[in-house]
């Protein structure tokens, strides 16, 4: 019986790990095929399943992924060869000659890395940012009354290009730095690039973190299966009960920036921040849970970010793998460049040990946040979002000595619980402001919304007509609040280093099953799905 039609058009929904097609068709199919495959062939099955997933979502655009993997394979091998030649060439050379030969080889290697960067970033720029750049040029031409208008081509983008491009680059740079050996095996590299749970929203993995794990996968263990499924369930609760339920409210206010007063805009900005966190971290739970079933440990992308006491700390706990990528491949290379080192030492002399390094650090930070903003989307509001965080983090670093002095003078202990809570609330407010611009439909709309908070701060809209107008009701907000409390309680326990799933594993079967049934029934009853709800695409899949 030909059942292929069941997957026809499935790609439209499969970008969500909580879609029925993914959870009840694709994933079980993958697990069954994987489970019945002999151990040696499991890696190939995993690769085939990953490519099938990519093909279902992006069709022929899977070619981008295949070509990207070919390019890093060749570049990696070339780099490896150059490194071997370099070793052989300098083996018996005197010290002073060694340096010159080394430099010559390094130049060649750098050229290869630049080629890799050019290929991947170039492709990303063309596919993702052409419309943005040409649109801005057209606006500029129009502003000068120039009759010429540039044609803006439309490109189809493969799913996850922003994620797998960064993985590809990290591999080439890691080979260049000698952190990993150049891989001769195309299938292994392709699996590292395409592992299906992580392709849509990350996490952005390094070759050293996952390639070997993926290549040496074993049988599905019962413990991994239950742990993975439990994590998927928890993520589902975050996404379906909270994030999707808040969607109509957020959409309404952000789509009609002129229609609401400051009070409603604050409510929508808070709700959006909650929605984004629940959506993205919920999806990450599904991704890491799925990987866990296969026995693969992917890097965490969230570490309870709203417990952060500064914006800088927040970004070490939110979308961790992206932040780490920018830190390792932009911040460090910029600050460790020869000119920057010179700048730091001269600035240190003039400005002192605290402010001196901040000059070069500030330049590197600027590059990081410019890229971070642009990575999230082709729009000025995203660039503003990046620059906003750049200013916050840099100014945070600049005022550190002053704030320490103020705290001392006011006799406030930086370690006291009260001050920590104050810092967390302050950080959360700053993050919410950033997210307001992030979600706004353009920078103008963001400014309008932000401005209204100050120019029209009233709560007159908070009457019995407000919630129906926003597409929600009091029950919706109440259940979101209750679920958030559950997530908060779990976060507090996790922050103390306790893994609830391990605690559950040790408890007797009745307790364990009661907890699981409660969670499932909670999602079934309070989830925003089926009649009256429009499925919400995962928010980070669009980046």
């Amino acid at each position, binding site marked *: 019986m030909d059942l292929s039609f069941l997957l*026809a058009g499935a790609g439209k929904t499969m970008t969500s790990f909580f879609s029925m097609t993914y959870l009840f*068709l694709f994933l079980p199919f993958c697990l069954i095929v994987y489970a019945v495959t002999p151990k040696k062939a499991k890696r190939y099955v995993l690769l085939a399943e990953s490519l099938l997933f990519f093909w279902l979502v992006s069709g022929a655009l899977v070619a981008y992924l295949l070509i990207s993997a070919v390019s890093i394979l060749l570049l990696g091998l070339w780099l490896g060869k150059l490194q071997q030649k370099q070793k052989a060439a300098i083996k018996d050379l005197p010290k002073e000659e060694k340096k010159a030969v080394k430099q010559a080889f390094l130049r060649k290697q750098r050229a290869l890395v630049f080629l890799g960067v050019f290929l991947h970033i170039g492709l990303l720029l063309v596919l993702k940012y052409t419309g943005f750049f040409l649109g801005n040029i057209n606006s500029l031409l129009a502003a000068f009354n120039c009759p010429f208008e540039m044609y803006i081509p439309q490109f189809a983008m493969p799913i996850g290009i922003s994620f797998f491009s960064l993985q590809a680059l990290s591999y080439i740079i890691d080979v260049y730095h000698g952190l990993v050996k150049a891989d001769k095996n195309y299938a292994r590299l392709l699996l590292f690039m395409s592992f299906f749970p992580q392709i849509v929203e990350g996490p952005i993995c390094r070759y050293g973190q996952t390639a070997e794990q993926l290549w040496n996968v074993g049988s599905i263990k019962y413990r991994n299966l239950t742990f993975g499924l439990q994590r998927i369930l928890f993520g589902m609760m975050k996404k379906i009960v909270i994030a999707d339920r808040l969607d109509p409210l957020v959409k309404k206010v952000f789509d009609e920036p002129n229609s609401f007063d400051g009070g409603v805009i604050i409510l929508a900005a808070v709700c959006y921040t909650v929605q984004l966190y629940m959506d993205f971290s919920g999806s990450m739970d599904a991704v890491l849970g799925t990987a866990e079933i296969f026995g693969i440990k992917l890097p965490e992308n969230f570490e309870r970010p709203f417990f952060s006491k500064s914006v800088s700390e927040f970004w070490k706990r939110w979308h961790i793998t992206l932040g780490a990528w920018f830190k390792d491949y932009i911040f460090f290379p910029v600050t460790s460049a020869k000119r920057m080192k010179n700048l730091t030492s001269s600035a240190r002399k003039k400005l002192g040990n605290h402010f001196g390094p901040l000059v070069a650090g500030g330049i590197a930070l600027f590059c990081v946040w410019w890229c971070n903003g642009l990575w999230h989307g082709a729009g000025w509001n995203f660039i503003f979002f990046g620059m906003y965080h750049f200013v916050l983090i840099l100014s945070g670093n600049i005022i550190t000595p002053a704030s320490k002095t103020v705290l001392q003078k006011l006799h406030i202990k930086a370690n006291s619980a009260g001050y920590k809570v104050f810092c967390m609330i302050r950080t959360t407010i700053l993050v919410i402001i950033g997210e307001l611009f992030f979600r706004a439909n353009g920078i103008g709309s963001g400014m309008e919304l932000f401005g209204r908070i100050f120019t029209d701060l009233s709560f007159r809209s908070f009457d019995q007509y407000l919630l129906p107008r926003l597409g929600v009701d009091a029950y919706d907000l109440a259940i979101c609040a209750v679920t958030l409390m559950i997530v908060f309680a779990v976060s507090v326990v996790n922050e103390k280093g306790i893994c609830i799933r391990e605690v559950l594993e040790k408890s007797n079967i009745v307790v364990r099953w009661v907890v699981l049934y409660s969670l499932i029934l909670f999602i079934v*009853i309070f989830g925003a799905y089926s*009649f009256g709800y429009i499925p919400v695409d995962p928010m980070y899949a669009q980046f």
Partner: protein
Amino acid sequence: MKQALKNTLKGTVFTVILIGLLWAVSAVFIPRNNTKDDWKYDYTANGFLAESANSLDVLFLGDSEVFASINPVRIYESYGITSYCCSTGKQRLWYTLEYLYDFYREQSPKVVVLETDLLLKYFSVDDLILHAPEHYLPVLRYHDRWKKFSFSELFKTPEYTYIDDYKGYHLYADIDAADEEGYMEETDERAYISRMNRLYIDAILSCCRRNGSELILLSTPSTKNWNMKKHNSTQQLADTLGVEYIDMNVSEYSVGIDWSKDTKDKGDHLNYYGAIKVTDKIGEYLNAKGVLPDHRDDKAYSGWDNSLEKMKADVKKKLKTEYSSAVITS
């Protein structure tokens, strides 16, 4: 091996208990009535639940094209034939089949008319997986009723009291003219009916045949939703299935729609004036079959006379233009 068997058994027991729990919880969430407050969704389409058993002879199924185009009360007025529109906005075939199953529980329609707009509308596997179990585990559909939960309802058995006077029809008085350009332009091409849709069409047909009903395919007039490609594929489908097909968009069954006056939204749906033309034609067609009884003098159907009076009063109130009075009196 022993451990694997143990784990498989554990997983199976867990799943069975879960299904049992969902089934038990479903009993709490099933609506106790078919009023707007109880059903929340599509209550007019569910009005048939409160009709007397075996009192409806014709069932109209489909998306919004049906409730905008077919007025069962007018068919009753003209021929005494009782019918009902189980139509909902953006209805997809999985939902159509649900309505058909529900309808057969208490009714024995002799004719089932399926509007064809939804035959070519895509619905995803996601919809199928999400909605198919709803029939057996209603909590999946009615879970949102937690907002209306009351302990007093818990032990009440469902009792349906809401009778829709319009019998599923929606009265639209607005006029928004349609652009007819390109409407039903000749072509030999055929639109694609997905295999998923085809599966459901087959299930609907076999359900009708099992219950002794005749299935008829009907395309109501719409410049926005219908074209020759769709007609060709539906005609081919009707020929393959061996069912009658009436397409009011082609000259053979044309009802003389005036696209400057008979549509409420630029040719997407008909308004009251357009619905009269479609209703009269379909009523005539059904009556000509000679198998559908005239209930007008039957006292058991006096409720229909009341509905007719109410609708007439509503129509007078809603439609006050010269055009409308000309249509109403004609």
